[in-house]
């Protein structure tokens, strides 16, 4: 049996066991899975050698789609595809412009778009309620509205199911000609062009897919936290996604989920232990990872497995 699927199955089992044994962790783990799905999009772009410092805009688009639509259409099974569709549409439009750029220009232009969205969400109070944010209430699941503890399990289950689905999708995509061509952009974009392959189109597909996953991640965050504020589009939120991608490692579709889980757990326990300095602890963790495990948590695991 291949090791990645086995590790994924073990990881899923461990998450369920944790959520069952420590009920309050269910919320944290659902958020981690949602962010992991969004970070899968960062991983795709990293494979092409590009870093997006503004990817939280797609989480915000997904989250606000849920917030805006929920009062009239509270069905989670409809809200999720709607959020994905909105983020995908914006991803396509923004992507058509962004894929013309590389490296720092690509990263900073993403940041610029995200900050424009953040400003709009913050300033257009009549529509977005500004920094007060929008409460997401009354969600239904396949037409039912179960009790809160059951809802938490359902959200956790949906997040886990989507994480597995997108993890598989990304793994398959990365092994496909398009995925391998995407990785080719990082090392020899010129060669792609001289093979008759339009590198921009290859990157655009990955960008739109990453936007879709960002939208789904954002929708899950909104459905779990039940409150959406412009903070979700702020540049620090985008930085967090890149942080998680580096922490987890870009070598496998499992990396984002390992990184997101580690990130959320470190954040929760660090905040509980040293309320005033938890960011310092996160920073120290990232430093240790960069210095001693450049392949992230996934790199450490796969190295140990090979040894």
């Amino acid at each position: 049996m291949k090791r990645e699927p086995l590790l994924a199955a073990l990881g899923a089992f461990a998450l369920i066991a944790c959520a069952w044994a420590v009920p309050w962790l269910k919320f944290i783990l659902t958020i981690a899975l949602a962010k992991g799905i969004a970070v899968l999009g960062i991983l795709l772009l990293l494979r092409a050698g590009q870093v997006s410092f503004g990817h939280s805009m797609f989480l915000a688009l997904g989250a606000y789609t849920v917030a805006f639509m929920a009062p009239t259409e509270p069905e989670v099974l409809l809200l999720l595809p709607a959020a994905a569709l909105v983020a995908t549409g914006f991803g396509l439009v923004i992507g058509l412009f962004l894929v013309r750029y590389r490296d720092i220009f690509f990263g900073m232009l993403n940041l610029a778009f995200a900050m424009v969205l953040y400003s709009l969400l913050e300033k257009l109070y009549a529509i977005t309620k500004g920094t007060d944010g929008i409460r997401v209430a009354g969600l239904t699941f396949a037409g039912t509205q179960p009790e809160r503890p059951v809802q938490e399990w359902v959200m956790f289950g949906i997040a886990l199911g989507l994480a597995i689905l997108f993890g598989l999708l990304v793994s398959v995509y990365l092994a496909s000609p398009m995925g391998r061509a995407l990785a080719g952009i990082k090392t020899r974009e010129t060669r792609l062009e001289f093979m008759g392959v339009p590198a921009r189109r290859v990157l655009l597909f990955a960008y739109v897919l990453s936007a879709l996953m960002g939208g789904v991640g954002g929708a899950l965050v909104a459905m779990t936290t039940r409150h959406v504020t412009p903070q979700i589009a702020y540049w620090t939120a985008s930085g967090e996604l890149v942080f998680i991608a580096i922490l987890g490692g870009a070598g496998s579709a499992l990396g984002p989920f390992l990184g997101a889980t580690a990130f959320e757990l470190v954040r929760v326990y660090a905040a509980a232990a040293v309320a005033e300095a938890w960011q310092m602890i996160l920073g120290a963790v990232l430093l240790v990872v960069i210095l001693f495990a450049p392949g992230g948590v996934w790199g450490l695991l796969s190295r140990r497995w090979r040894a």
Partner: protein
Amino acid sequence: MSEVLLSARGLRLAFGGVKAADGIDLDVRHGEFLAIIGPNGAGKTTFINMTTGYLRPQAGRIEFEGKPILGLSPRAIVRRGIGRSFQLPQLFTEHTVLENAALAIAARRGIWSPLAPLLRPRWRDEAMDLLDRFGLRAVAEARADALNEGARKLADIAMAVALEPSLLLMDEPTSGVAAAEKMAIVETLVRVLRSTGVTAVFVEHDMDVVARFADRVAVWSQGRIAALGPPAEVLADPAVRRDVIGIAADA
């Protein structure tokens, strides 16, 4: 053999005061191996770059199979049937040699499939067969950045051949290759290229290679073609020997 595949007329391109092409007129015939020789800076690579759409000449025209190709993108020119290899091999260094070859095959057969694996059995077999022909089967699973220079050059050309071009332009296919393995590499190369029937233009500094494998030789000098003809004739020309080969040999 006499039918013209590629025709260049009046190509001019200058970089500042340096004339890289100063009225280049050249016909490449179907099925021939045309060597381009000349000192560094004479404009040999510039000719390849103009023909493949990487550079646009300030004047002149290029026709391929009777149709103009100037102004087309490198991608469009590749699709018309002109392939190229590079002086510095352009391999996907984080991929294996097999993946490099398979990706080139995918580029020809259709890359837009996000759900089927690159190394599907049929493409894997085709890629292995390609590598076999170039003597690279043993390094198929090695990462491209782990190859020696000779293997890198062959892999680079194999990727161009995978596109099944009618015309293949090779920029110094033996530069940087150890002298001991140079002839073996060229023998492999010529054997594969002859078997495919591709027309080849190659920039070369090694006159032994030129004399042995070229059907015709074009001598480049300061952006102009100073001589053109069969190797035995051109390489025996005292002016070429003095002004070009001497310089090239020192370069």
